[in-house]
């Protein structure tokens, strides 16, 4: 398999090199204009050619028969371009010319092919042809093309192509005007050009633009879409930010899309579209790793789903593998647009995988026109912000001494046990740094009517602020669109990505106590052996945790137009991922000392393929009935293979490959699942006012039991553009007004493979050296699909020609929610996956965009907002379920699935220094007397916010742009780990928060932290992790990004023959404002939110286009 992969890979590389050379040459040819002066009457064609040749060094290539009947030529030009000269020369001749690579090819005139306009050719007439693209680089169909000052006009076809005939005079003097609803008009002096490529810019966001609605059908005009879809364009994504994957970039950019950030590079983030749509896993740390369905939306890149790495049923030896984010294998710079499908009308075509929403990514492609090349570089650095304040050595010593004394030790013993009082080692500063980030990218694109291509590559090198943690990526992507035959088109894209990540774990373990030195007097690492933890500096220097991997994402799309409105197409996609994680715990520090060093390698390969074939029919009847119907069939399969090897006992620490270990062990695993589906969608548009969409999908999957392995999801949507009604007297200020409604179902099948069938697990250590099989999962034929019923009502309107407003009210009911549940052990089993609960997400998404200024100084502003409430409606068998107290979660009717469940802290008893709590009757009781049965606990808050979103402002003046992203979140609660202020428990082994300084010391003290105690022999407070004492309000406002960029103005670009230059500077994660303030010199939500602090970064860069 590996060989195959690399062979493929090499072929791709060769291809890329070939393309680079080929198109690089052509690019040069087009750059230079030539000035020719020539005059005379009755000149022979040969003379003219010779004159041009001598003045330009261009060669002529022609067949004599073509020019033998040439008419005599009259010409009078000065400093004219070669095209101008040749236009005059060939004007009345029966031949024409093309320029290729400094060679002028003369050939006989042909009848024009497949043009849209069929006006008769006449002498004195030029053809102006071109392509018109919209914001998403999608061809604009139906754009109006006019020659200013004349009545000549045409419209573009489905490829955005047009031709128009003009006179010589018009060609030299008039302008062409291109307009399209929702886009700024484009005006250009024709200047004797014969071909142009135009990219229209949207005149206001969200207004009548074309958007990608799913990966099965062509982009649609936004006003005809009945579903709820948020879009993010390449521009809005602001890929110049130093964020390594696009999913993290989405934070705050789309209404109703919440990104839960992670502070570690290259690891997955959780994205909640309209709240969390799967039940919270109540089984943390349990052997059943997969206790609920996936939380993540479905990501589809150019029609190929990208599958997340999930725990399956692999052997225990494989369970410590670290998962990387597969979405980071997509270069954010290659993204053309992102569409986020939120309601059933939009997502039900993805059927059983659409429950959590679907995110469709469309990558950039080449377009007709000159070869364009961009080179960019950016670099910068980052630092940590909102650091947690730990006790320093002196404070620590003092507190530990007091703790021992509280436990009844003598002052002498306590002083002795508390260690050094004159050492304070700043472990955080020693293990962290200012980190650098660098990125180089290059892309090349272009093409002619038949073939368009785009190639891009990029290199990213990003350091984390913690030492020995960094991340490198090399991306490639090649896309070719080719017209194989008149009715047959092919599109191919290939994207290999290489990854290297170093992630030595130095921070998620216990914080090191501060009153020990980092180094011995001789400079060697001080051993923290009595604590049982390694010296993190030794870990940084000696241990290894490296990922080396690659992914290959490729797809091919074939489309055949049987008739004008009838197409068949097929897409074949493959996604391969290989990753090797190498870890080594050195025998020279505590991580590997006891076993003389340990090495472990995890090898992961996953291959998936997808094939969908479909037929599309899109006729128009009597000009008013438009139909667009698609029916297709899809099959997909995924295989994951895992291999691990471990070794311990290295006689010499540098020889740390497993083969040098004295004890070796290995394990492997293979898993697969497959599914096939039939999907369909029909859109009907009446008179441009009424839209109806119906879509559905049948899915059959290997995951579920044989009785229920298939399901059908369907949805319908309605749209009414009220403002297109004749009776709708357009208010002066109201430009567009539309109503939408949709209702339907989607599902969620991502729960791991073969869960519904009873499973035997094998071991050869069970009995008498004979292989034995024990039943690990009972057959569960009743496990069935989670179903989500979504309804959505929306309203869009645009007003005052500069504002657009969109609001959606939705209800999403998740029925038959899957979760692992405890069952009576008399059944033979203790937990089983079951469809146990029904819950609802209900809320409002809204976005308002405004072009506040549109003149020389521009100001665009977008505010998006998502409000969501979750509630569990019903728990089957009326059985409430609780997680461990540290999990602090509950499954209970009437309460959110993301609720925090625990006990209400009532303060510290000033007399005894003991924590007090409200019991189930509301009485204040001593923590020791609190009945901590989970069912007596309270609802304390919700982990997800009530409302969140982003506020994005962009200012422009003369090529100078300032873009500011502000994120906000209201109403979430955050339960931090109690271990950060552990009341003296475990204080001898790990450092704790400075908040511990506010402890109770003597009767009468009004304290926030109880009397310190190591907790031995029943002294001290019981641990209540699910307490409001550790609960913080997570309402915040974040200045997420400020980008300042400057691009050379258009007139200068023209003077530079199309060379574009832009420079930018970006600040990321600049400032936080929290509603709940941290006490002075103490920790609060701001510091506690992330165990390891977030990074703030500053980058700058430049980009050149040729």
């Amino acid at each position, binding site marked *: 398999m590996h060989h195959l992969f690399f062979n493929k890979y090499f072929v791709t590389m060769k291809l890329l090199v070939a393309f680079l050379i080929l198109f690089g040459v052509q690019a040069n040819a087009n750059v230079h204009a030539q000035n020719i002066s020539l005059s005379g009457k009755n000149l022979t064609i040969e003379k003219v050619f010779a004159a041009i040749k001598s003045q330009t060094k261009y060669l002529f290539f022609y067949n004599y028969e073509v020019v033998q009947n040439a008419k005599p030529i009259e010409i009078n030009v000065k400093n004219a371009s070669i095209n101008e000269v040749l236009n005059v020369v060939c004007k009345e001749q029966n031949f024409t010319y093309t320029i290729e690579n400094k060679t002028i090819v003369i050939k006989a005139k042909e009848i024009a092919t497949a043009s849209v306009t069929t006006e008769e050719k006449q002498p004195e007439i030029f053809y102006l042809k071109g392509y018109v693209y919209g914001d998403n680089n999608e061809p604009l169909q139906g754009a109006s093309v006019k020659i200013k000052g004349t009545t000549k006009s045409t419209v573009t076809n489905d490829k955005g192509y047009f031709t128009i005939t003009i006179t010589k005079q018009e060609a030299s003097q008039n302008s062409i005007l291109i307009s399209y609803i929702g886009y700024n008009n484009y005006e250009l002096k024709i200047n004797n050009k014969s071909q142009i490529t135009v990219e229209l810019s949207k005149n206001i966001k969200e207004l009548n633009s074309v958007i990608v609605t799913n990966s099965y059908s062509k982009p649609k005009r936004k006003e005809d879409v009945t579903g709820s879809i948020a879009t993010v364009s390449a521009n809005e994504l602001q890929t110049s930010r130093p964020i390594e994957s696009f999913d993290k970039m989405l934070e705050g950019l789309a209404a109703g899309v919440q990104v839960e950030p992670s502070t570690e590079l290259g690891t997955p983030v959780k994205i909640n579209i309209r709240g969390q749509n799967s039940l919270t896993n109540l089984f943390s740390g349990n052997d059943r790793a997969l206790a609920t369905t996936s939380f993540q939306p479905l990501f589809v890149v150019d029609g190929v789903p990208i599958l997340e790495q999930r725990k*399956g*049923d*692999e*052997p225990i030896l494989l369970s410590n593998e670290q998962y990387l984010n597969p979405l980071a294998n997509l270069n954010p710079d290659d993204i053309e647009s992102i569409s986020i499908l939120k309601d059933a009308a939009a997502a039900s075509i993805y059927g059983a995988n659409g429950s959590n929403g679907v995110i469709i990514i469309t990558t950039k492609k080449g377009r007709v026109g000159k070869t364009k090349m961009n080179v960019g570089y950016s670099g910068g650095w980052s630092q940590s912000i909102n650091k947690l304040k730990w006790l320093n050595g002196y404070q620590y010593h003092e507190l530990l001494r007091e703790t021992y004394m509280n436990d009844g030790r003598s002052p002498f013993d306590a002083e002795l046990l508390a260690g050094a009082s004159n050492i304070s080692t700043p472990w955080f500063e020693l293990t962290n740094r200012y980190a650098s980030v660098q990125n180089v990218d290059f892309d090349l694109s272009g093409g002619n009517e038949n073939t368009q291509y785009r190639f891009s590559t990029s290199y990213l090198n990003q350091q984390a602020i913690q030492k020995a943690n960094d991340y490198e990526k090399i991306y490639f992507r090649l896309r070719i669109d080719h017209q*194989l*035959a008149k*009715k047959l088109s092919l599109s191919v894209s290939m994207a290999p990505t290489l990854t290297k990540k170093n992630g030595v774990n130095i921070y998620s373990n216990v914080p090191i106590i501060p009153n020990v030195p980092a180094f011995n007097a001789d400079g060697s690492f001080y051993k923290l052996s009595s604590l049982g933890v390694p010296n993190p500096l030794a870990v940084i220097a000696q241990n290894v945790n490296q990922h080396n991997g690659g992914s290959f994402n490729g797809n091919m799309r074939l489309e*055949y137009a*049987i008739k004008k409105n009838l197409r*068949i197409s*097929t897409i*074949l996609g493959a996604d391969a991922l290989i990753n090797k994680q190498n870890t080594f715990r050195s025998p020279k520090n505590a991580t590997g000392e006891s076993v003389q060093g340990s090495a472990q390698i995890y090898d992961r390969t996953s291959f998936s393929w997808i*094939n969908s*074939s479909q037929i599309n029919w899109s006729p128009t009847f009597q000009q008013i009935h438009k139909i667009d119907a698609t029916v297709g*069939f*899809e*099959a997909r399969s995924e295989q994951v293979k895992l291999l691990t090897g471990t070794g311990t006992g290295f006689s010499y620490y540098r020889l740390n490959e497993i083969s040098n270990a004295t004890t070796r062990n290995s394990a492997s*695993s*293979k*898993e*697969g*699942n*497959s*599914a*096939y589906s039939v999907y369909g969608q029909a859109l009907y548009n009446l008179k441009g006012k009424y839209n109806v969409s119906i879509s559905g999908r049948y899915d*059959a*999957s*290997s995951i579920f039991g044989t009785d229920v392995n298939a399901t059908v999801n369907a949805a319908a949507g309605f749209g009414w553009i009220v403002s297109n009604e004749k009776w709708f007297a357009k208010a002066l200020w109201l430009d567009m007004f539309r109503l939408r409604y949709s209702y339907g179902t989607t599902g969620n099948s991502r729960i791991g*493979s*073969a869960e519904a*069938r*009873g*499973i*035997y*697990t*094998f071991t050869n*250590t*069970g*009995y*008498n*050296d*004979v*292989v*034995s*099989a*024990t*039943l*690990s999962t*009972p*057959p569960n*034929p*009743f496990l069935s699909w989670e179903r989500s019923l979504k309804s959505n009502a929306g309203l869009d309107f645009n007003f005052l020609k500069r504002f657009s407003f969109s609001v959606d009210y939705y209800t999403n009911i998740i029925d038959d929610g899957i979760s692992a549940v*405890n069952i*009576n*052990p*008399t*059944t*033979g*089993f203790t937990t*089983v996956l079951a469809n146990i609960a029904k819950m609802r997400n209900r809320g409002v998404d809204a976005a308002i965009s405004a072009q506040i200024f549109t003149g020389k100084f521009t100001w665009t502003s977008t505010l998006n907002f998502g409000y969501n409430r979750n509630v569990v409606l019903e728990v089957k068998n009326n059985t409430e379920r609780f997680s461990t107290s540290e999990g602090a979660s509950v499954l209970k009717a009437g309460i959110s699935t993301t609720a925090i469940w625990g006990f209400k802290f009532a303060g510290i008893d000033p007399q005894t220094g003991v924590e007090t709590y409200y019991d189930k009757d509301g009485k204040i009781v001593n923590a020791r007397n609190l009945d901590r049965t989970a069912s007596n606990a309270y609802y304390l808050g919700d982990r997800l916010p009530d409302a969140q979103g982003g506020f994005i402002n962009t200012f422009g003046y003369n090529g100078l742009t300032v873009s500011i992203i502000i994120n906000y979140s209201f109403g979430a609660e955050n339960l931090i780990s109690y271990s950060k202020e552990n009341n003296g428990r475990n204080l001898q082994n790990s450092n704790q928060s400075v908040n511990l300084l506010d402890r109770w010391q003597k009767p009468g003290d009004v304290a926030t932290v109880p009397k310190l105690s190591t907790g031995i022999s029943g002294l001290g407070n019981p641990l209540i992790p699910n307490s409001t004492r550790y609960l913080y309000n997570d309402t915040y406002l974040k200045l997420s990004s400020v980008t300042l960029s400057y691009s050379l103005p258009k007139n200068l670009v023209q003077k530079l023959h199309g060379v574009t230059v832009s420079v930018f500077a970006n600040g990321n994660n600049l400032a936080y404002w929290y509603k709940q303030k941290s006490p002075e010199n103490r920790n609060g939500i701001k510091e506690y939110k992330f165990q390891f602090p977030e990074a703030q970064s500053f980058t700058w860069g430049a980009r050149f286009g040729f």
Partner: protein
Amino acid sequence: MKLTKKYTIVLFVSIISIQISCKKFLEQDTPNKVAVTEIFKDFEGARTTVVGIYSNLMDYSYYLRDFTMYPEVTGGNIKYSKSTAQVLSRSYNFINTDFASENDMNSFYQIAYESLYAINNIITNFNQATDASTFQKNRILADAYTLRGLVHFDLMRVFAQAYNFTPDASHEGIVLRTVNKPVTDPIPPKSTAKEVFDQIIKDMDTAIVLYKNSVPIYSNGNDKTWLSENAAKALLSRVCLYKEDWNRTIGLSSEIISSNNYTLLSNSNYINSWSKKNISSESIFELAFGNRIAGSLGDYFNPFANSLTIQFAATNDLLNVYSNTDIRNGLNLYTSVLINSNPFYFTRKYQGTNDSANNIKVIRLTELYLNRAEAYAQTNNLTAALADLNVIRRRGNSSAANFSSTDKTAILNEIFAERRRELCFEGHLFFDISRTKRNLRRVDCTSGTPNLNYPDSRYAVTTPRNL
């Protein structure tokens, strides 16, 4: 490049048909594991499921610790040599509740019912193994029936009052599991003790018949480490003893004793038989450790191997039941160690750890002598009873005089005492106390409840329930 329309359509159609043609497309196997529907399709697969039950018996929650130690800890043979992390301390204190996390027989309960589910799977599906001979299939099935009887019996001993608790055994037993139901089905009510015992005896009788027409199916290990016709009969003799079916007890015990397949160890060989993986000549069924060790009971008894888990020391109550000349007394069969300057005695029946872990002896010939002695005594055949009793008594203590009495109660008491001397740490004491309706008296005991007066609900462990 030119493609005809026909050619294109053929291309599309072929792509679509590739998708549809794979009929088995949705049947994915996971090679780490085998689906229930697949594993019985051949002899080897079916056999592994039976071995799976043996390995369940070898679990820490079953014979490897909890189940075996429960009657020792509660009966008064064991005291703890350490104060923290005491295994079965809830049982020691009789404070098991129906909360799974507050019941230290919960894991045993779980694995027992899990085993029953797996056994029923075998009984339902064994016939699918087309490559197995009838003799092989019969052995698979015989093992399954024996195991089903054994597991039900073991559950019964822990979670229900003894058979004779009510005159007609109509009191609550346990939930019988002879047919697998979907896990989502409601749990049936508990059967009566009589119903459970009837089912156990029926299963074991079925097994005994099947064994006669079967061949061994395992090549590894000693024959005695696998169930057999004799093992089934021996276990059934124990069941009949508990059921007070004295005649059958006598009949089955006699069959084994007179079979000459098993011989009593001599006094001098006795101690050696309790070391390493020696298969004892008097064993009828042992649970064996292979070379790939998963654990050992020795960790709890071997003071030198593991100072962290060591805890099951013999009580003075137990040590006091031996005479000075008994080969099984504190000097001979125990290792004494000072822990915090207090002497503790650890039995050498289970002192092997890791590679030399002792096999778990599930049933030995001595027990059959004692079973028969008790049955003879109960049926007033006192001479025969004394003969059997003295065989065991004098094997352990060669210089002892024969016990002699004409008082049935005295004889039964002496049989009870001999059972304790002979079978201690093998999982009998508390069950013997319970089925003979004795009061529990523990002297060398730190439990809050050292004594129980019969009858008491605490003679049965509360059935754990769902969390």
